[in-house]
């Protein structure tokens, strides 16, 4: 039995932990719900990347090509139809990306709120209500966004907003309201004359996996910021100008009957979109994984696995967190091979996260039985 487990099994620690991590407590709802949201979001992202992203990009390219050919053959109806298809494909891609990123983002917020629960000066029932409202909104928004492409404007009284969007916005509103309430709860805690300032084992853990995740996560976030600054400083405006030039070249060259130049512009446009997409994806993912690592550092005391396995999952998570964005960036040079390695990186993160969730589940059971006896 490790020192960590020993500490957990001591009566004082058990009682303290059981108070804060009791069955159906706000903190437990936030922790389990948060990790489940992150896992679902990541699995959705991996499925999207592996099976939808590339075929979708190819179909967009084919339709752009069709639009350019329609310009060359002076067929405005065909050009319009091609863009209608592109609009549908972009909406399909955009809503999938939004559902994926919002689910993960809300998972992070849930974990954060779990950490802050001892400092939110509301009754436990009020905190539980807020936790449930948060999870309702955190599920409603991505599910609504996911359905936008399929529901469209069917039965909607609005000109541009369908029912799926309305429910998605309602979900966002729920989350926003909970955030405001949690802020008010924190303010109330600090306004109290004699607040109960108890130590929280989550914030005082100095185990090896916690330190590795905290340092590794901070470094990942820093790498993401440096990459983002480099991209914004050297590529962003150049890419936007090039984007405009290529759209102009497609139409003017095709209208002038220079099909070769028009088709070249379409091919260059596709490569430019690819370059933009991999840079943005690498930047976003390395920062998100960094934040995830930092958050998970705090929850190490709740992961009821042997020290050796907690170390292994921490390292696996950090390796996957670095591998995914690096191989996403390499997709421009290595193509689908790098895409495959990036998916493996994502899978490593998912496996490590799932293992930690299992550990938290096991820990919960131990505490419950110990506290009950």
């Amino acid at each position, binding site marked *: 039995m490790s020192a960590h487990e020993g500490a957990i099994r001591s009566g004082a620690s058990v009682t303290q932990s059981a108070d804060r991590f009791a069955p159906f407590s706000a903190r437990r709802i936030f922790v389990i719900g948060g990790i489940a949201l992150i896992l679902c979001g990541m699995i959705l992202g991996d499925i999207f990347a592996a099976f939808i992203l590339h075929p979708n990009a190819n179909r967009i390219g084919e339709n752009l090509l069709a639009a350019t050919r*329609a310009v060359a053959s002076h067929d405005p109806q065909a*050009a319009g139809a091609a863009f209608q298809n592109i609009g549908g494909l972009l909406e399909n891609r955009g809503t999938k990306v939004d559902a994926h990123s919002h689910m993960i983002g809300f998972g992070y917020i849930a974990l954060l709120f779990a950490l802050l629960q001892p400092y939110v000066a509301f009754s436990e029932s009020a905190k539980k209500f807020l936790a449930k409202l948060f999870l309702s909104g955190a599920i409603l928004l991505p599910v609504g966004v996911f359905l936008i492409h399929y529901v469209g404007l069917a039965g909607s009284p609005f000109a541009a*907003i369908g029912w799926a969007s309305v429910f998605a916005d309602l979900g966002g509103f729920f989350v*926003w309201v909970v955030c405001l309430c949690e802020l008010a709860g924190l303010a109330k805690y600090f306004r109290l004359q004699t607040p109960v300032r108890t130590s929280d084992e989550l914030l005082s853990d100095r185990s090896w996996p916690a330190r590795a995740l905290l340092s590794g996560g901070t470094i990942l976030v820093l790498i993401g910021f440096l990459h983002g600054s480099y991209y914004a400083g050297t590529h962003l405006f150049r890419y936007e100008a090039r984007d*405009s030039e290529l759209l102009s070249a497609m139409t003017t060259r095709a209208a002038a009957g220079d099909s070769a130049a028009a088709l070249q512009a379409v091919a260059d446009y596709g490569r430019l979109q690819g370059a933009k997409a991999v840079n943005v994806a690498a930047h976003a993912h390395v920062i998100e994984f960094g934040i995830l690592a930092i958050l998970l550092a705090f929850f190490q005391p709740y992961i009821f696995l042997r020290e050796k396995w907690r170390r292994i999952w921490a390292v696996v998570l950090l390796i996957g967190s670095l591998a995914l964005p690096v191989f996403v960036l390499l997709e421009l040079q290595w193509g689908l091979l790098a895409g495959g390695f990036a998916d493996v990186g994502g899978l490593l993160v998912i496996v490590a996260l799932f293992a930690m969730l299992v550990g938290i589940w096991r820990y919960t059971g131990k505490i419950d039985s110990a506290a009950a006896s």
Partner: protein
Amino acid sequence: MRTSRKLLIFGGLALAIWGMGYGIWYAVFIEHQTLDGLGSALATGFMRAAENRLTESQAALADATSRSFVYVRQVDAHGHWIGLGLLLLILGIAFDRVEFGERIRVYLAIALLAGAVIFPLGVLLETWNRGMGPQAIAVSGSALVILGLSGTAWGFARSNS
């Protein structure tokens, strides 16, 4: 709770709430219309080109480019405010582990919070003014965040050693 932690926790949560509120407002009142307009301008650009009305075609494509420029920055500002807010909140929770004196920790917290506010603000201002001013604001903000983050990572590393 120390001042540096308060700055990061309250500042981060307030910034995340602001970013979400901005995102909801944008999604409800502007985003759908912007995307419809963007798609319509692109289609018009190609259809007018097919009709050999190249001046109108180029005007429509320029309109699409301009709409895309604004859309990208609106979404970036929303996403970065929330993301940075959460990051500040997380760092605030762990800030006692940054092995510096409280004075340096306060400076780091101020740099992080100021950077997190003005970096997306600069990005958003680019939609109203395409000059160097908003870009300079965005660059200053990101430099402050990087500076604060580097200091924090160093502080964590000192704590580990």
